């Protein structure tokens, strides 16, 4: 019974359906319960929220990532799946608090000063929410000082910086330097991304990780979390 429910949730995350009114990746899905309705139902049946997240959402998003990589899925397919998980996480949140399950962690994201591009950052934010992280988005064109202030105040486990221009990626280095000066560098893992960013660049400015796309950002964060715990 619980197994059936979880596999139904997984299937609908892969289809990218928030509610029963949504279309899916495949035809003929409208009218069948979506991830929101199924999550409510699963809770009513007493299924453990942690099971729903780990075996419903996370496993499904791994499949979505694979499908995106081989270009079976395109951007709108991937976003729909992440949105379905994001919506369902909101339903689960009060239950997680009640059962004492810690959320996965918090990340502050920002596009750096001088850079007004926010589409990439927004896509990554949706995917991170879909992976179960709490995301606080500072917006774009954000100064190193404003980013460091937010980190000092909010104490997130992660900081995600985005830049689309080669002329603005230098602000990432400045932000990391300011984190160090302000004595909070060791409190937060910094991961960066954007068109002009490479693994090499990330290392050269002392970032903790680099994600070429949203899925890689999630993988890098999971790996960094394991390191923190271990």
């Amino acid at each position, binding site marked *: 019974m619980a197994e059936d429910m979880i596999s139904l949730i997984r299937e609908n995350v892969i289809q990218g359906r928030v509610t029963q009114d949504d279309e899916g990746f495949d035809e003929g899905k409208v009218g069948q319960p979506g991830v929101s309705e199924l999550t409510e139902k699963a809770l009513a049946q007493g299924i453990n929220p942690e099971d729903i997240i780990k075996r419903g959402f996370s496993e499904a998003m791994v499949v979505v990532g694979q499908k995106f990589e081989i270009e079976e899925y*395109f951007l709108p397919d991937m976003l729909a799946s992440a949105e379905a998980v994001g919506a369902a996480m909101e339903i689960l949140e009060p239950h997680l608090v009640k059962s004492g399950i810690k959320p996965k962690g918090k990340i502050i994201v920002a596009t750096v000063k001088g850079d*007004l591009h*926010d*589409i990439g950052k927004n896509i990554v934010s949706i995917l991170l929410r879909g992976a179960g992280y709490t995301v606080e988005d500072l917006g774009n*064109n954000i100064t190193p000082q404003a980013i460091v202030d937010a980190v000092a105040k909010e104490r997130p486990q992660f900081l995600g910086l985005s830049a689309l221009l*080669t002329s603005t990626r230098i602000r990432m280095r400045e932000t990391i330097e300011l984190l160090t000066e302000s004595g909070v560098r060791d409190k937060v893992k910094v991961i960066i991304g954007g068109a002009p960013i490479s693994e090499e660049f990330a290392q050269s400015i002392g970032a903790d990780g680099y994600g070429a796309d949203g899925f890689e950002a999630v993988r890098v964060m999971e790996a960094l979390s394991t390191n923190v715990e271990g």
Partner: protein
Amino acid sequence: MLVIGENINASNRSVAKALARRDRPFLQDLARAQAVAGADFIDVNAGMEKGSCEQQMATMEWLVEVVQAATDKPLAIDSDIPGVIEAALHKYRGERLIINSVTAEPEKLDSIGSLTAGRKAWLVALAMGNNGMPKDIEERLAACELIMTHLTRLGVKAEQIFFDPLLFPIAVDTSQGLVTLKTIDQIKSRYPEARTVLGLSNISYGLPNRRLVNRAFLLMAAYAGLDAVILNPLDAKMMSFIKVADMLTGKGTPRGYIRAHRKGILVD
């Protein structure tokens, strides 16, 4: 519709490599190919790779020289750094040109606007201020108003301004196609002397068969009154659609369309 060929752009990996090793023939071939394909302007973007402002200026100067040695087509100087634009202007031998681009930020409007005034230059002005990408029509029109007021005060004429209403991926936000089209329409009615320009390929980001989406949106934008477009002129079907759109909107003529047919450049 005016076509600005986008291919010489440092965000293009092969171009970035060619710039780094100062590969003259590669860049000149790319310039000539775009000219032959019917581009009215050749955009030159030397990137903003690591290094000092002086290095960036040097790369741009070199690129301008290389491209104008290969083609007589006027250039679109693609940078938002006043020093780099100035360096390009210094080397540029042509008369007509496009400066691409400026945003609704007072300091940038001052410096880049002054470079435009008194020249036979057109200036691409993005309909955005320093609050990031505007989501709705009103925010974009507010940026246009600020740009128009500021630039005309500097002596730039309205007919020198090409407003870029901005175009976001339809894959991310399905409202954005119509937002851009309606903004074009509003700009045309508010500032009849100014013109509009779009970077077309943004619309199809994240989708399969991107060229198909780009072509369809071009026709819609032509109907909304778009005057110029930044695109890859080596897409022969796209260039055919531009000929068709010009005829259907009355900007071109049926006989012009037939001439294109006789030249064999129309691809079905």
